[in-house]
Structure formats: C-alpha cells, structure tokens
C-alpha cells in the first residue's frame, strides 16, 4: 500500500464457491446495498434474484431493431421495384403483388439489424468497452475469470462505511477482503 491518498473504489471479498457467493449475495441484498456486484467466472443461475436485479431490457431494443430492418428492406425493395423503376421480368407484376418476392430480403435484413442491435445494445447496457477499471488494480481480482467468486461493494453506495461493510462481508463468509483503491 502506498502512502499517498487515493480514491477508494470499495471492498472486494472472495467467497469459496458459487453457493457461498449465492448465499452471501442474498445477505448483501437484504442489507440494502445498491452499488455492488458479484463476480464469477461463469454466469450463475438465479443469482439475479439473489441480488435483486431486474430482467434485462435488451429484448425490447432488439424488437425495434428488427422492425427497423423489416421496414428498411420493404421500403428499399418496394420503392425501387414498384415506385421508382418498375420493370417487367418474366411477365411478373410490378405492383403490390410482387411483395412476396421481397420476403427473403426482408427477413434477412430483419435478422441483420437485430443482430447489430444485440451487439451494440449489449455493449451499451454493460458499458463496455471499458478497458480501465479500478478492480483491475486488485491483486486477486484476475482470478474472477478463472475460478474465484467475489463480491465487491462500492464506496459510492450510501450505505457504505469502511468498517461495517468490511465486517458484513467477513460475517457472510468473505475471505481475504481487500480495500480496492483507484490508481492515480
């Protein structure tokens, strides 16, 4: 620990297993914390509930993304084929009845647009890419992507207090609890 004062990010505590983390999460939730998170190498079933989180709203983004795709495709096809420059191919009609021929493209663009919405929607929701984060400064946190389970409670949380929070964490089975400070 260097002696210069740094901004504190919060406490990071490790738990021995997924189930331990699960139980701990319930407790932290009940303690009424808001700015905290559980870190695990893989998604843990039911942890959302244990942490009292709401269901992701991503599907709504994607729904509208998809609609946009369909609309784009239809407009593109219909205006060019019927409105702007109708052509006779194989004596096929160039009017509303030629729409069935546009379905494949409409479908594909729907998927394409949805796909992009998923990607960018997700990145937006989880605020990535963010390459720099205080937690990366922690000595043990790198195991979070391997085999360790952590809970981190942020100092920004109104309920956060240097001592009680630390006790809480240890009381619910947190080990090698660490005070994470932001680098300069």
């Amino acid at each position, binding site marked *: 620990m260097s002696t210069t004062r740094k901004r504190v990010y919060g406490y990071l505590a490790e738990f021995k297993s997924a189930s331990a983390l699960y139980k701990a999460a319930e407790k932290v939730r009940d303690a009424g914390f808001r700015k905290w998170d559980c870190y695990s190498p893989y998604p843990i079933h039911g942890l959302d509930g244990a942490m009292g989180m709401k269901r992701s709203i991503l599907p709504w983004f994607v729904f509208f993304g998809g609609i946009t795709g369909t609309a784009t495709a239809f407009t593109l096809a219909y205006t060019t084929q019927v409105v702007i420059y109708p052509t006779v191919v194989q004596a096929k009609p160039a009017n509303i009845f030629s729409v069935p021929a546009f379905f494949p493209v409409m479908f594909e663009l729907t998927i394409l647009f949805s796909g992009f919405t998923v990607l960018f929607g997700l990145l937006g929701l989880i605020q990535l890419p*963010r*390459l720099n*984060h205080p937690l*990366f400064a*922690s000595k*043990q946190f*790198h195991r979070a992507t391997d085999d360790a389970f952590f809970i981190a409670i942020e100092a920004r949380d109104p309920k956060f207090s240097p001592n009680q929070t630390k006790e809480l964490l240890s009381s619910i089975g947190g080990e090698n609890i660490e005070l994470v400070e932001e680098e300069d």
Partner: protein
Amino acid sequence: MANIFPRWSNLLPLKIAVCAGSAAAGVALAFSYYATPKALNVGYQPSQPIPFSHKIHVDQLGLDCRYCHSFVDVSGHSNVPTGSTCWNCHQHVQRESPKLAPLHKSMNPTHPGYDGKPIEWVKIHKSPDYVYFNHSAHVNRGISCQTCHGDVNKMEVVYQAQPHSMSWCLDCHRAPEKNLRPLEEVYNFNYNAEDYVSKHGAALGVKTTEELGLKLKEQFKVKPKESCATCHH
C-alpha cells in the same frame, strides 16, 4: 497486478466511433455530389479552335439551328457543320477576322499554310459508347434543342448545361409533358410556354403550361419508353 490501460482509454472507443462515422458520412456526401455527372459534366466549357459565338449567330443573326446542324432532324447524330458551311458566309463576311484563321487553313487555298484538313472541334456533350441517343427521335416529337443543351443562343462559348446522366434522361422519359413543345417551336430558343398558352391556349383549350404539356402528350401520342433497349443495344 495493475491496470494495463490508462483511464483515458475508456472514452477512446467512443471517440473513434464518432470520428470514423462522421468521416464516412462526409466521404459519402462528397462522392455523391462531386462524382456524379451533375458536378462532373455540367459547366464543361472547353475552348474551341475558333471562338464561335452561338450568341451572335443564333441570337443576333437569328440563324436556325438546322442551318449548321443540318441533319439533326433526319439522323440520330446531330452533325457539326462542315468547313464549307462556314465558308459559305465567311468567305464574304468577316473574312479577314484573325479568329477565322483555322477556317482559312482548311478552306481557303490562297491562304498561306492551307492544308484542307478539317477543323477539330472539341467535343462537349459526350454520351458513352453504349448509349444510342437519337436526335431525330426527339426534335421531331416536340423536344427542343434547348431542353438538353440549355440556352445555347445566350452562350458566347458553349458549355454543357445539363448533366446528361441516365437518371436525367429517365426523368423526362417518365414525364415528357414537362418539356413537350409544339413542333413549330422546337428550334425556337425564345419559346416561352406561358406566352404560348396565353396566345393559343384558348384554341387548344388549355389554361396552364401543365395542361399544354399533357395536351401535347395526348395529341402527339408521346409514350417514351423506359426499358433498356430504348437506349442500349
């Protein structure tokens, strides 16, 4: 164990995205303006071997287009006048004007340096080789020279007035009424639809220029085609 990326890197992706996006948009816009016939062709005004002024010949002297471009209404190709056409008048008129030196060179055997070689006019209105535009098909059906070549009668030096791009052609083929004229007025550069309507409107039973156009389209049975073979074969 420490952060490998500085904190400022957190905003970097966003910045990059914004810059790249706007750059792309800029390029697209620039291209769609500068790289289209509208910008590339319109206003092309090369200097000609003889500074021939359409303004003088058409506007002041009132020459008909067909005096020089004599085959415009019989051939697909509107011919440029032969040396002799110019010589007809200019062996008498303005004979000594220094501007006419090239003409003398090709027409006047007594001229020093006479070689009888034709004058090389610089081509202004170019349609690609795979486009078969037919002048006679247009001027004989009520489309004026002016419609495509602009106010040549006002031009000291001829320039390209219209983009002559395919979409430009299509615009007229889809709505010919906008440009149709009575056949008598095809070569009249001072034609004005309003005046015409006010003069003959009553006789034709039309009040506005739009009505005139539609009337002529109906009357002449003008049905321009849009399919490829109309211009490409």
